[in-house]
């Protein structure tokens, strides 16, 4: 195991009687890009805030670069760049001013920050908007600015809480590209998301969370290998007939998931199974063979779809 940058044991957070994070263990290595994947309310943001030393855990331990955020909050925060789930840019200031003043909050010199701001404007492709108030930016631009702002202090760890939610596909790809570049520079990334393609793209390793607990852990490929088959055959018979044919199909594959609108059949070879089904004169209205994804892992682990 390489040097562990973050290490949590039995980490728990309660809000009154409600347990938002329920005794989770995880480690993040230096330079790694680590993902928290899970549906709404899983406890991802709460976990992020505890790591970021802006929320106090109820019990358990956590150390960030060997430090307890409870005792060394400011020192921990000095290492981090934080991109919260909802942008909290300074709406009274312009793009440039937002970047500048954030650096000043860290105590960095004017000279250093001014130089850094130029660099970050280019990084976020916001040079043309540099003197515009942030309210006038599009959602994607605000997100890029929030990420750029988190980098002004040259953090070792970048915390990204759903970095691309609400962005169009093109904006997402631009962001992913920026994040890859940071990873190449050795920045440790901690990312939450409920997009499995994003998790597959960005994360070296991830944990699947649900209801405050960690359900599984591993690289995207490992998880798929462990919790799903190589391929999935999706068939639709129409909502009435789905129920009828499901028992027959169950006999023909490793595992089956009945969703309201379709049936998922987990097998090594999807095409072969489809041929067998057709041979039995069960003609699905539509069919699709695809590779298993993290979505399937999630379905297996929780019995629920990731995006409901």
């Amino acid at each position, binding site marked *: 195991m390489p040097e562990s940058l973050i290490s949590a044991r039995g980490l728990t957070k309660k809000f009154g009687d409600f347990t938002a994070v329920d005794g989770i263990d995880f480690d993040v290595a230096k330079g790694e890009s680590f993902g928290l994947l899970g549906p709404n309310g899983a406890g991802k943001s709460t976990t992020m805030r505890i790591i970021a030393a802006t929320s106090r855990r109820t019990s358990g331990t956590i150390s960030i670069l060997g430090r307890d955020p409870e005792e060394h909050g400011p020192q921990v925060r000095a290492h981090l760049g934080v991109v919260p789930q909802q942008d909290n*840019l*300074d709406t009274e200031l312009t793009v440039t001013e937002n970047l500048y*003043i954030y650096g000043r909050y860290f105590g960095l010199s004017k000279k250093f920050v001014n130089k850094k701001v130029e660099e970050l404007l280019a990084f976020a492709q916001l040079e043309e908007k540099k003197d515009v108030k942030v309210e006038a930016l599009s959602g994607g631009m605000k997100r890029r600015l929030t990420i750029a702002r988190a980098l002004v202090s040259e953090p070792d760890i970048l915390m990204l809480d759903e970095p691309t939610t609400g962005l169009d596909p093109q904006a997402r790809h631009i962001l992913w590209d920026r994040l890859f570049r940071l990873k190449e520079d050795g920045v440790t990334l901690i990312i939450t998301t409920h997009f499995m393609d994003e998790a597959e793209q960005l994360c070296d390793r991830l944990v699947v969370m649900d209801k405050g607990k960690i359900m599984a852990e591993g690289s995207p490929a490992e998880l798929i290998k462990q919790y799903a088959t190589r391929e999935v055959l999706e068939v639709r018979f129409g909502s009435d007939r789905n129920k009828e044919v499901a028992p027959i199909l169950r006999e023909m594959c490793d595992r089956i998931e009945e969703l309201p609108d379709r049936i998922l059949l987990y097998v090594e070879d999807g095409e072969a199974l489809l041929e067998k089904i057709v041979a039995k004169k069960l003609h699905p209205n539509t069919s699709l063979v695809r590779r298993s994804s993290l979505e399937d892992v999630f379905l297996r682990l929780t019995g629920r779809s990731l995006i409901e």
Partner: protein
Amino acid sequence: MRSAVQIADARANKPGHQIYAGRARAIIERASIALRSSTWVPIATGFIEPVLYLLAFGYGMGTLIGDISTSAGSIDYTVFIAPGLLATSAMNGAIYDSTWNVFFKLNESKLYQGMLATPLGPLDVALGEIIWALFRGLSYSIAFMLITAPLGLVPSWSALLAIPAAVLIAFGFASFGMAITSYFKTYQQMGLIQIVLLPMFLFSGSLYPISVYPDWLEFTIKLLPTWHGIELIRDIWFGVIDFSSFSHLIYFLVMIVLGLFFTTRRLRDLFMR
């Protein structure tokens, strides 16, 4: 060039480093940048109010009233109300930024959340915002002084000491104002501040000595910060510094400390729980 980590580590063993990074000036710098693009209308009205009182009461009603007798002897009515109105300028200025502006930042924008995700602590934010608010109190009182001096309402050079005293008063009001605001959740509650402030100002001896009241009311008024502020400035204005002047000073010191304490605690509870 020190890195963010080195800067934070240097303070790691200082007492209170969890709540204070020693960088309230960064918050003040932010406020000064934001000021450049803000509207000037509400700023001007806050200053004009006491000047209007001076004109209406001093030069309007004052001509009917003539002189009034005080502990400093018999003085012209306009001269009597001038120091009280200077104190009011300082309070108005301090209240302006520390209540409505802070309320907006707490509830509408997530500004403090962003600040507190950095190594800054809640005391940096509280102190920075409060000092910024008191600047406005200071500038209002200087402006008021500049208006009253040529009118012959400032009796001596020593009355200039009213300015540092106004800073103290503004500090107290800003500190307390932000503390109270941080506990308010709705616009209705914020409206209360306005409703309480006007009578506090009107009845605290700015326009006439409170000796006209029955004892119980006089006693009640003497508990209010407005009365202490007005009396402090008036003592300095007329050069009658005595034990009671010091009691006013102490009153404001306590107010500053309490306000900072509760604001800091509240910010921590809101954004770092």
